[in-house]
């Protein structure tokens, strides 16, 4: 499959940027935030990124949201350090070293871990320069999931009202805010929103400016699944680079090098052709250090070192043998002396000596003497042999023949070199490789390249064909058709005249054309449709929410005040043009924690804030 040769064109080689986020400064709120009326804070709470900023009234609609950071936090490295505490978002810098310690408050697109959500909110408020004492004195516009579970909204309201003491809050759906921002006349018209985010993709029909929630559909695939798919594809193709194929780099490939094919099958046919492949493959260059280059050049040095070690070992062994020989010799001499005592007939001294030596009879003495003398002989032999080997080693300096061959006769040497065996087994394969000096430079760079060919279209294709990843859900096209079929024909006609694409995962080149093609396939012959991509699919939700907040500052029918929260419970919210549909179901209020002391270190309390019951 990797048909590209080493000497291919140097084009299409891209380095990884490996972006590292700079920590956000603690911004001053600025005079605009301390206006006569408390200025609303707009927070687009996304599972990928959280975007926060002030909704400043006045002539200037305002720049981008002041804060944009990844919605993750992690404790500092090296275990839980008491001082630093968990770091959030951009303060983490590069995400890769902490990949396994990253925690997000989101589970799919719903915030479930409100402690982490609290951290994110702390971070946002702190860096936006909220300085009010005792409470956050600004109304908040917050985005939530489509058909947000009541429990999660209850928890979120509790966090906002009880912990931060905000005066009023409004919940909205990010794609609706984006929709109204792009076409203000949408407030009264109908349309179909296809919104694809990090964790899931929604298809939302809008009728007369209001969300038709019971016909919405959600496909549980988004940018994160595409990144995961791409990562596993590349890891399976390049098992040697497992660690270097990180999720951040995958996101980089998706954002910059991937596109959506207008006709998937046709595009694949194009990729079969080797020329097309050559011209369009993107070779991602992994960073590599040329230290590897250095190590292969010094393999000779390594062999030298090995020989030195061998020699040292042999010398050591020789010395040991000599010492042993000496000891044995002395002992032998003593025994011989004792034997002479016997022969001379000095029985008393002989017996005394025997007792000293711990022996019982002259025969034992004799046998012992024999054993010792044979050992001494053998030792002398081995020393002679070792000396011969040493000389042979010195003479024979060919680096390629494994030195172990010459050590075979001297088994003792081999035994003591067993400690060094792992070292040898690693290095002997290198000995076989010819140490060339010119080729490695090119080989090394090409070895560290990832060839991203059809993966460029395969990874983003999962939202159109979830079967690529094994999901049973239908893709965007089929779900679109399913939704349209639930309406009468005239309503269908109205809806397809205003198809709107939003969300970060919609930013692939070729996405709009593909949606148009899918619509062409499913609509009746020669009917018309209109597809529009958001002007800024990522930030439009925030801009829309800000515009909405400014329009509805005075409107009390859309904000949930603290009083209403206490009366009607956390899951209560008020409908407005960009909100979910309200279903009047009361959730039982969660029992406030009893006086147990949990492990998180929070002290026991009489009642968790708010209504103590």
């Amino acid at each position, binding site marked *: 499959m990797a048909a590209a040769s080493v000497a291919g064109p140097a084009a299409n080689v891209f380095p990884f940027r490996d972006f590292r986020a700079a920590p956000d400064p603690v911004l001053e709120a600025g005079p605009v935030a301390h206006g006569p009326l408390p200025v609303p804070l707009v927070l687009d709470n996304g599972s990928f990124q959280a975007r926060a900023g002030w909704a400043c009234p006045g002539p200037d609609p305002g720049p981008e949201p002041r804060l944009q950071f990844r919605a993750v936090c992690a404790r500092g490295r090296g275990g839980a350090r008491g001082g630093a505490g968990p770091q959030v978002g951009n303060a983490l810098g590069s995400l890769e070293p902490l990949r396994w310690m990253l925690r997000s408050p989101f589970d799919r697109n719903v915030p479930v871990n409100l402690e982490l959500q609290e951290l994110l909110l702390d971070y946002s408020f702190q860096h936006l320069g909220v300085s009010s004492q005792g409470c*956050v004195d600004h109304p908040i516009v917050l985005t939530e999931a489509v058909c947000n579970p009541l429990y999660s909204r209850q928890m979120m309201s509790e966090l906002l009202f009880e912990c*931060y003491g905000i005066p009023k809050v409004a919940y909205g759906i990010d794609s609706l805010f984006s929709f109204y921002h792009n076409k203000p006349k949408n407030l009264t018209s109908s349309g179909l929103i296809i919104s694809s985010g990090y964790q899931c993709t929604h298809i939302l029909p809008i009728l007369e400016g209001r969300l038709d929630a019971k016909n919405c559909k959600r496909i549980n695939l988004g940018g994160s699944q595409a990144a995961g798919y791409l990562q596993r594809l590349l890891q399976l193709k390049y098992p040697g680079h497992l660690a270097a194929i990180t999720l951040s780099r995958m996101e980089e490939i998706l954002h910059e090098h991937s596109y959506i094919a207008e006709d998937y099958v046709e595009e694949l046919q194009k990729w079969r052709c080797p020329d097309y492949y050559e011209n369009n493959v993107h070779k991602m260059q992994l960073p590599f250090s040329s230290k590897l280059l250095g190590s292969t050049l010094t393999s000779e040095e390594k062999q030298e070192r090995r020989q030195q070690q061998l020699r040292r070992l042999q010398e050591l062994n020789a010395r040991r043998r000599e010492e042993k020989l000496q000891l044995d010799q002395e002992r032998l001499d003593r025994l011989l002396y004792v034997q002479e005592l016997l022969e001379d007939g000095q029985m008393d001294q002989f017996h005394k000596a025997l007792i000293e030596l711990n022996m019982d009879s002259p025969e034992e003495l004799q046998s012992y003497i024999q054993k010792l003398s044979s050992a001494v002989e053998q030792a002398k032999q081995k020393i002679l042999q070792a000396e011969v080997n040493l000389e042979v080693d010195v003479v024979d300096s060919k680096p390629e023949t494994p030195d172990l061959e010459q050590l075979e006769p001297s088994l003792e040497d081999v035994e003591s070199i067993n400690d060094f065996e792992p070292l040898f087994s690693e290095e002997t394969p290198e000995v076989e490789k010819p140490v060339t000096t010119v080729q490695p430079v090119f080989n090394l760079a090409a070895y560290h390249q990832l060839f991203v060919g059809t993966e460029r279209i395969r990874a983003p294709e999962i939202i159109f064909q979830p079967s690529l990843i*094994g999901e049973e859900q239908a893709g965007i096209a089929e779900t679109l058709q399913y939704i349209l079929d639930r309406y009468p024909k005239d309503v269908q006609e109205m809806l397809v005249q205003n198809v709107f694409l939003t969300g970060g995962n919609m930013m692939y080149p070729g996405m709009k054309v593909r949606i148009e093609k899918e619509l062409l396939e499913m609509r009746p012959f020669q009917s018309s449709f209109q597809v529009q991509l958001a002007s800024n699919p990522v930030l439009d939700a925030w801009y829309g929410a800000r515009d909405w907040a400014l329009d509805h500052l005075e409107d009390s029918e859309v904000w949930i005040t603290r009083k209403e929260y206490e009366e009607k419970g956390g899951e209560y919210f008020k409908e407005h043009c960009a909100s979910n549909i309200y279903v009047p179901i009361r959730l039982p209020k969660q029992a406030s924690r009893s006086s147990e002391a949990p492990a*998180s270190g929070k002290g026991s309390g009489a009642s968790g804030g708010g209504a103590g019951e």
Partner: protein
Amino acid sequence: MEAMSENKMVPSDFSTGPMEKAAKPLPFKDPNFVHSGHGGAVAGKKNRTWKNLKQILAAERALPWQLNDPNYFSIDAPPSFKPAKKYSDVSGLLANYTDPQSKLRFSTIEEFSYIRRLPSDVVTGYLALRKATSIVP
């Protein structure tokens, strides 16, 4: 003992400037706040973690929804009715053939020889990618 959040110290301090790096009380928060969700309804030593989405949805199903009410699980997209196209595991091209030994799909002869030379963990990896791993070992 007052209930405290993680990074709070003594609640009587409400200074805006950071006192120490260790525990800086954030002035706009209520330092006595305790999440009621943490620990869930059956509070106590056992149930200290947050509910994950599956648990939340399971609890939501039990609520008295009407037939036409939209809620989180009712807007899940339906499964696909059209038969899925088969693509090669290795290259992504349209796959007409399947290797009977490893169940991987391939489209050309070169891919077949590549597949036959793969180590078993890579084969399992490709199958897992498609959620086609078999239960029988």
